[in-house]
Structure formats: structure tokens, C-alpha cells
């Protein structure tokens, strides 16, 4: 092999190397926790690093942990799923409606402005959404929205309150909506307009209304819409900072209402990693690695489904 070919082929291996390394290191680091916590990891929401100032003791299979340590990911898993699901359930209808509106009802120049500004949502860093969430959204929720929902929707158990803080499921899901929107809307709008250019004339020439035209095209691009949703979901699952700042940092307690603080896997890793430094047994770090592994698997799965359906990948707010 010639030297230039060798150079290219070698450097091209680097992504593989890192991908494999990420997987290997996470698994390797997580092994103690996998064995020590076993299935309890997935069924318990208790996260207790134990008495880390004392000498580590040996647990099952010989792995060490601080006395009394037990780790469970259930709270984080639940929080991740519920905030993402809530966000997606708002993102999808908004995306669909916006696509129909921008393609069919809004005059062309205005439509370009609006679709560009949708991409501007992606340019805002995650921490800045967190800052906005903490200083604007949360007080607004607490002062205006929650009092209303406590009374108006209070008959539903999960809306009963009392709401004591703006942080929690609602705030996190809200910032997630703003972050996922550019991804799903760019894919759906792009696909919609491609089909529209070919099909709008024949559909309308048969006497269809604009709404009917829009819905027909949406039905034809169903696969891409679902795929875009999975790509957006992958983003929501992995989002860290904005959620970290708005979720309320719950630990060792499952949310009891929509106003409760919550925590997600990504946010938990970010906030708990420093507590791992002071755990001499290293079990906290191992448990966090297991959380990371779980998060990685779920995100990769969602991304893979999304890629299979749309042929695209989403990176932060950009769609490739």
C-alpha cells in the first residue's frame, strides 16, 4: 500500500477507535456496579453512595462499595422518559401544523423568515436555555400557570399540587420543546416541500382545499415524520444542561405530581459525578458509568430508528 493510502486509511480508523473505546471504557467502568447492584439498579429509585468516609466493604461478587451503598436508576430513567415524552408530544403537532402553514398558507417571503428563525432556536446553547428557564420560565410558571392548573385541572390527580417551585417536569419539558423543534421541523418541512412541489398542482386541480392538500401530503410522508420524531427524541433523551438547570435535581424520591422536581440520566451524571470523587470505593463512579451506558444505548436506539426512517442524523440542532 502506498504511503498516502496508508495515512488516509489509518486516520480514517480513528472514529471507530473512539467509538469502540467509548463503549469499552463505559462497560469496563460499569462492571462493578452491574454486579454489585444487579437488577435492583433498574427497579429502585434509591441512590445512596453509602458512608463514603468509612472503609469500603465487599459486596456480592467481591466488588467493593462504601457501607450501605445502593444505587438505582429508576428515578432518572423515569424522569428522562417523562420529560422527553412530554416534550415530543408537543413538538409533533407543532411541527405538523407549522409545516402545513408555512408551505401552504403563509406567503413565501414570510415563510422563509419563519423557517430560518426556527433554525435559530438551534443556535442557542443549552446552558442559555437553562438560564432562561431558571430566571424567566420558572417564576412565570410558578406565578401564573401553576395556580391556574392547580384549580382548573386539579381534579386530575397528577395536577393536584401543591406547586411549590417552578422547577420540575414542566419546566424541563418546556425547554426540551424549544431544543427539539428545529430538528423535527427542518426534516418535516423539507420533506413536505419536496412532495408539495410535485403534488400540489394535481391535488388542488381536483378541487381539494389547502387543508386537504396539507393532510394528504402529511399522510404520504408519515414515515419521515415518525423518523424525525425519533431523531428529536434522541436529542431530548441526551440533553444535559438545560434540563439539569430546570429539573429541580430530585434524588431519592419519585415525582408525585406534575409539579414535582425530577431528574434525568444525563442531568444526574452531570450533578453527581463530583460526589464520585470522594467515594474511595469507586462504586459511585461505576454506578454513574452504568447510568451512562443505559443512556447511550437508549439514545443510540432512538437515533438508529430515526436514521432508518429518514436517512438523516441529528447533531445538536443541526440535521445532517
Amino acid at each position, binding site marked *: 500500500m*502506498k504511503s*498516502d*493510502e496508508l495515512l*488516509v486509511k489509518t*486516520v*480514517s480508523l*480513528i*472514529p471507530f477507535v*473512539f*467509538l469502540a473505546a*467509548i463503549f469499552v*471504557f*463505559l462497560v469496563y467502568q460499569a462492571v462493578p456496579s452491574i454486579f454489585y447492584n444487579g437488577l435492583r439498579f433498574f427497579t429502585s429509585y434509591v441512590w445512596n453512595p453509602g458512608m463514603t468516609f468509612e472503609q469500603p466493604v465487599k459486596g456480592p461478587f467481591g466488588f467493593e462499595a462504601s457501607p450501605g451503598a445502593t444505587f438505582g436508576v429508576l428515578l432518572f430513567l423515569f424522569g428522562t422518559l417523562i420529560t422527553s415524552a412530554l416534550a415530543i408530544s408537543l413538538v409533533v403537532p*407543532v411541527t405538523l*401544523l*407549522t409545516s*402545513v*402553514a408555512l408551505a401552504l*398558507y*403563509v406567503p413565501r417571503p414570510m415563510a422563509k423568515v*419563519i423557517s430560518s*428563525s426556527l433554525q*435559530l*432556536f438551534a*443556535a442557542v*446553547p*443549552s*446552558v*442559555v436555555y*437553562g*438560564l*432562561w428557564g431558571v*430566571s*424567566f420560565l420558572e417564576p412565570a410558571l410558578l406565578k401564573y400557570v401553576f395556580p391556574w392548573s392547580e384549580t382548573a385541572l386539579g381534579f386530575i390527580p397528577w395536577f393536584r399540587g401543591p406547586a411549590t417551585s417552578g422547577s420540575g417536569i414542566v419546566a424541563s419539558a418546556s425547554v426540551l420543546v*424549544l431544543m427539539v*423543534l428545529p430538528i423535527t421541523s427542518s426534516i418535516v418541512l423539507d420533506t413536505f416541500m419536496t412532495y408539495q412541489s410535485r403534488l400540489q398542482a394535481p391535488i388542488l386541480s381536483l378541487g381539494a*382545499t*389547502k*387543508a386537504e392538500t396539507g393532510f394528504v401530503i402529511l399522510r404520504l410522508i408519515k414515515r419521515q415524520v415518525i423518523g424525525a420524531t425519533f431523531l428529536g427524541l434522541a436529542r431530548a433523551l*441526551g*440533553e*444535559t*444542561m438545560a434540563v*439539569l438547570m430546570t429539573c429541580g435535581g430530585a434524588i431519592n424520591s419519585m415525582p408525585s405530581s406534575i409539579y414535582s422536581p425530577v431528574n434525568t440520566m*444525563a442531568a444526574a*451524571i*452531570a450533578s453527581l*459525578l*463530583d460526589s464520585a470523587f470522594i467515594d474511595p470505593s469507586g462504586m459511585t463512579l461505576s454506578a454513574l*458509568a452504568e447510568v*451512562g451506558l443505559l*443512556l*447511550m444505548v437508549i*439514545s*443510540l436506539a432512538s*437515533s438508529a430508528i430515526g436514521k432508518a426512517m429518514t436517512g438523516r*442524523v*441529528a*447533531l445538536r440542532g443541526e440535521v*445532517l
Partner: protein
Amino acid sequence: MKDRSAGRRYLLDGITRFAGLAISAALLLALLLVLGYVFLGAGVGFNPGMLISTGNTTSGGLLNAIVGTWLLAGLALAFSAFVGIFVALGLTQYGGSRTSSLQRVAIDALAALPSMVLGLFGYLVFVIYLRMGFSLLAGSLTLSLMMLPYLAKSAETAISNVPKEFSEAAYALGASRWQVTTRVLLRFAKPLIISGALLALSIGAGETAQLLYTAGWNPGFPTWFVGSQVGYLTYVVWAGINQPSEYSHALAFAASAVLIGTILALLAVSKWIENKGAKNA
């Protein structure tokens, strides 16, 4: 055969139109709400001294954080551009079809990794295992993992867009594959690659999770690639807003404004280069 009520169909059309327009307007409003609030908040507490002095998140300024962000993102860009361009070459010029599809899967998988997973990996491998400690090198290497897929895809698109005629002509003159690659392809792909790089830079500047446990924090400037921590703007935003003091909040808002302004500027330049490149092609 009964007529479908035209009135009902038009009603649906009207409702859809109203709902669609309302939602679009609401989105614009939301964007204004976020950006407006941040810039307003930044303006309120701002004092120009923040931009020229260093500080930690409770006092002083943002200079160390600004420089740190550029250092981290810039170095990360260097790493990921190097690898990304070679990957793109591998996919377009030097590839076999078997390795190509595997390569694409690897790149897509990297792109799908959550930022905190990368941050955790960076901590485990660069900070601890490779003993870099919290440092510029650890932070930028972790960040480069995130930027890599973007650069690889940009470079691949850029190289594919170079008209085949150019490389054919060069080959016909007896050029080797490497010569064609460097003298023809990379040369004409430059604008698009640079535009992609600026885009990646803008994304990297706004990231936090990868850096929290790899770059650390520094109220001053890092002294070397390893052994010295780095400050960065997104850290100021996070830590600043979490402090109780007004001044910390002001710093956080100011950092946010600097970040958004920088990102928008990078995006604008990136788009401009992309358009200029298209015009010259």
C-alpha cells in the same frame, strides 16, 4: 352518492389556516422571548469591564472564559478537522465500499452519542486514565469527539461537490492520487469545508457537558495543554446563575450574550462563505 358538505370542508380549511398561522406566530414570539430576555438581561447588568478582565463566577470579568472557549473550541476544531477531512477522503477517494458503509455507521453513531456520555468518557479516559487532569487537552479532545461527525460530513459533501472534470483533467496530466487530492480536491473544496468548520465551531462554543469534568475551571488563563485547567463561557452561565449574588447573575447573562453573539456571527460568516463558494463554482 351524497355530497360531502362543502361548508364543512371550508371550515376545516379555515380552522387549519388559523391554527397554523397562530402556531407560526407563537414560535416567532417564543424565539423573541428567549433571545430578547437574554439580551435585555445582559444589557441591564452589563459593564464593559467584564470583557477585558478575568474573573471567576462571582467577581471580575469574562476575559479568561472568552479566551478559554476559543482555545477549547479552536483546538477541538483542529483535531476534528484533521480526522474529519481524512475520513471524508477515505469515503470519497480512497475507499472501498465495504469499509465505507461501516465508516458511515461509526460516524453516525458518534453523532448520536449524548453529550454527557462523551463528557463521562472524556473524564474516565483523558482526565483519569491518561492522567491529563482537568486541562485544555482533555477538554478539547472530548469536544472534538462531538464535532467530528459534523466535519466529516461537511468535508465529504464539499469534496463530492468538486466537479469530476477537475480531477479527471489532473489525472490525465499524470498526477498521483495524493496530488489530485491535495492540489485539486481540497483546494476547491476549501470554501465548503471552512464553512462547515465554522458551523462546527459555533456548536462547540456552546457546549458544556463535555467540558464540565474535563476542562475544569480557571479564574485565569491556562498555562499549558495539560496540568492547568481552563475556564469557558458556558461554565460561567451555569455557575453564575446558580450563585445567589446579583453580580454573578450579571456575569451569567453577559456570558450568554457573548456566546449567542459569537455563535450568530460564526453562522453568518459560515453562510456567507458557503454562498460565495457556490457563486464562484
